[in-house]
């Protein structure tokens, strides 16, 4: 057992979740008082581990066949959103995390108000409940593709796969942040980086052999076809490809020197996410004609066709397992992140009942995870076993992404306000031109929310107003009404004095670090 594996004496604080991943605990700043106790107890991870976790949360090869259909234009479809959404998210998160530990709930609490901080992390947390069933159903169908395609339409099989994998994920998450960090990093490397590199190398081999690309690669195909609203919907909705980049900032206190290391984490993760999204999609578009990118057989068909060209079809089951590993690694980060943020603010402000604030001996929000798991189980079983639910499940992805956009609206607004109201607060990194950048992010998020009310292909010939009512109703219920009820029903006695003392110590420690050198330029 390493020194970092010793359970801390200060269990009960949210930052006391785990041991180290062996990346240098104790080498950080010398701090004294309660903050020192808290920080010494905090889990330790390297900035690279956090970058891998961030990348695992956001990017995988799952979307590559979908975007390969657009050929060379997929570069534009990823780069434009990167400029207006990824860049603002990365820069704003880097600055805020270098000044305030705790993630999005803390940034919004400091910049706007504590109830809005709760709203931000609630929205981040709540939308994942609907995300897990669809993610794990995809995992089930990926396994089915190689084992027995008929399983993909078997409700019992799908339900069993979802339940087993989800609850295993909850158990792993409850063992501590270190386990999540290790497995999600492993999932990214095995499930995305290695197979992604293979796809890109084979793509270049294909072109190097003198073959003509299946999708034209010339200047005329740099941009997607402009057809008005449909193209706008496609481009603006792609902003959301990068959603989740800020989520792992909740673990920033695990870094030895968050002020310097978190910006490095964000920029490294941004580079990896861009590469993972763009390069494999391009490679597939070179080798596999869009007519063979099947709708009903899913993304595995594209990988199958890709490998069949090179007569290495045996790699199809290998990439299936890789995709499963990447999906499960990504799921772990989502289980560990938002629930931790929700716990932290709820302990400080008493927003959740004490039962949901209770921690296990690892310092993990186990009751919150289990309660979330019960709700997810009900939804997942309905998805797997009730045909009307599964065939209409896509509508939840519209609602939950709308809910998630509330987080971004609040985050960008908080960043702008904090620059104005707290310019003197020490920040290890100051984003250049933060206000224009945050305004760009704010406008991009608002545009994505507005475009979310445009009926998608799946809605067919249904009434536009029905769509608006369904999406708007879901947004209000999940993103506003439920968190309002939590705020309304909270009791003063639900606050944890320990958490409030920790927050005070944290604030003192942050203010006391003003002497560190700052990077970047001020707006």
């Amino acid at each position, binding site marked *: 057992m390493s020194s970092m594996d010793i359970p801390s004496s200060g269990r009960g604080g949210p930052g006391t979740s785990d041991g180290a991943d062996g990346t240098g605990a104790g080498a950080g700043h010398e701090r004294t008082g309660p903050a020192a106790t808290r920080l010494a107890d905090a889990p330790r991870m390297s900035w690279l581990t956090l970058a891998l976790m961030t990348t695992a949360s956001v990017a995988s090869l799952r979307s590559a066949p979908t975007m390969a259909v657009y050929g060379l234009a997929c570069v534009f479809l990823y780069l434009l959103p990167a400029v207006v959404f990824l860049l603002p998210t990365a820069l704003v998160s880097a600055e805020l995390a270098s000044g305030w530990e705790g993630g999005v709930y803390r940034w919004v609490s400091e910049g706007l108000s504590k109830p809005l901080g709760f709203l931000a992390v609630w929205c981040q947390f709540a939308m994942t409940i609907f995300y897990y069933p669809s993610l794990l159903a995809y995992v089930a169908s990926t396994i089915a593709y190689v084992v027995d395609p008929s399983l993909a339409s078997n409700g019992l099989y799908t339900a069993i796969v979802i339940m087993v994998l989800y609850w295993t994920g909850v158990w792993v998450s409850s063992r501590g942040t270190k386990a999540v960090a290790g497995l999600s990093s492993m999932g990214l490397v095995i499930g995305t980086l290695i197979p992604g590199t293979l796809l890109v190398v084979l793509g270049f081999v294909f072109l190097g052999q003198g073959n003509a690309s299946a999708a034209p690669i010339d200047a005329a195909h740099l941009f*997607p076809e402009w057809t008005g609203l449909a193209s706008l919907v496609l481009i603006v909705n792609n902003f959301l490809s990068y959603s*989740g980049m800020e989520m792992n900032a909740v673990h920033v206190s695990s870094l030895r020197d968050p002020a310097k290391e978190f910006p490095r984490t964000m920029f490294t993760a941004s580079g990896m996410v861009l590469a993972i999204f763009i390069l494999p999609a391009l490679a597939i578009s070179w080798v596999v004609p869009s007519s*063979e990118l099947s709708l009903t057989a899913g993304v595995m068909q594209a990988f199958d066709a890709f490998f069949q060209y090179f007569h290495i079809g*045996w790699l199809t089951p290998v990439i299936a397992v890789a995709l499963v590993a990447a999906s499960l690694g990504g799921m772990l980060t989502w289980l560990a992140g938002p629930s931790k943020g929700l716990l932290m603010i709820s302990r400080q402000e008493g927003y959740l009942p004490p039962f949901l604030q209770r921690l296990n001996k690892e310092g993990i929000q186990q009751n919150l995870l289990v309660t979330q798991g019960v709700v997810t189980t009900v939804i997942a079983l309905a998805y797997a076993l009730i045909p009307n639910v599964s065939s209409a499940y896509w509508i939840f992805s519209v609602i939950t992404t709308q809910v998630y956009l509330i987080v971004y609206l609040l985050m960008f607004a908080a960043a702008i306000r904090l620059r104005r109201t707290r310019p003197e607060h020490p920040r290890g990194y100051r984003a250049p031109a933060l206000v224009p950048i945050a305004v760009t992010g704010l406008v991009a998020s608002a545009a994505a929310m507005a475009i979310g009310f445009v009926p998608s292909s799946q809605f067919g010939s249904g009434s536009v107003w029905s769509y608006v009512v369904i999406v708007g109703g879901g947004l209000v219920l999940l993103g506003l009404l439920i968190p309002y009820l939590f705020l309304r029903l909270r009791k003063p006695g639900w606050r944890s004095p320990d958490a409030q003392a920790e927050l005070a110590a944290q604030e003192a420690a942050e203010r006391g670090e003003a002497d560190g050198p700052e990077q970047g330029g001020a707006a």
Partner: protein
Amino acid sequence: MTRNPMASRHRWIYLGAIVLLVGMLVTALLTYSELHETNEANRKAEQLSEALTAAGYPVPSQSQIVHTLGEDGGAVCEDPADALKQAQWKYGMSNGASGPGQRPVLSDREVVFAESIVLSVYCPDKLAAIKEKIDDLKLDDTVRN
């Protein structure tokens, strides 16, 4: 303190994950049956190539078609109208996100109609069940040809 995750108290979790992945890999490699080239598979592939060409779609190589669709269409023809399959392909008609940012878009009609052609060649009996659902989709031309 060490950098080796296997030396930590979570080593059993890591080992369990590795065993699970290796087990899945072995199972997948053993159970996955590649579609082999047969006269029927070749005939169907030629038929599909002609149909795609006539419709103005890019045509995959004969080998690609044979080994991904075989004689019976493989996974494409496996109960495409089923609710769970429908959930998957409807969810898949989305933007470029692979995380929780995944949401539907107004998809291009090319992939959907190419799918109809594949179904009409390999499993025409299954086409009718899904045609109504495909016809109900609101599609556009966002892919530049």
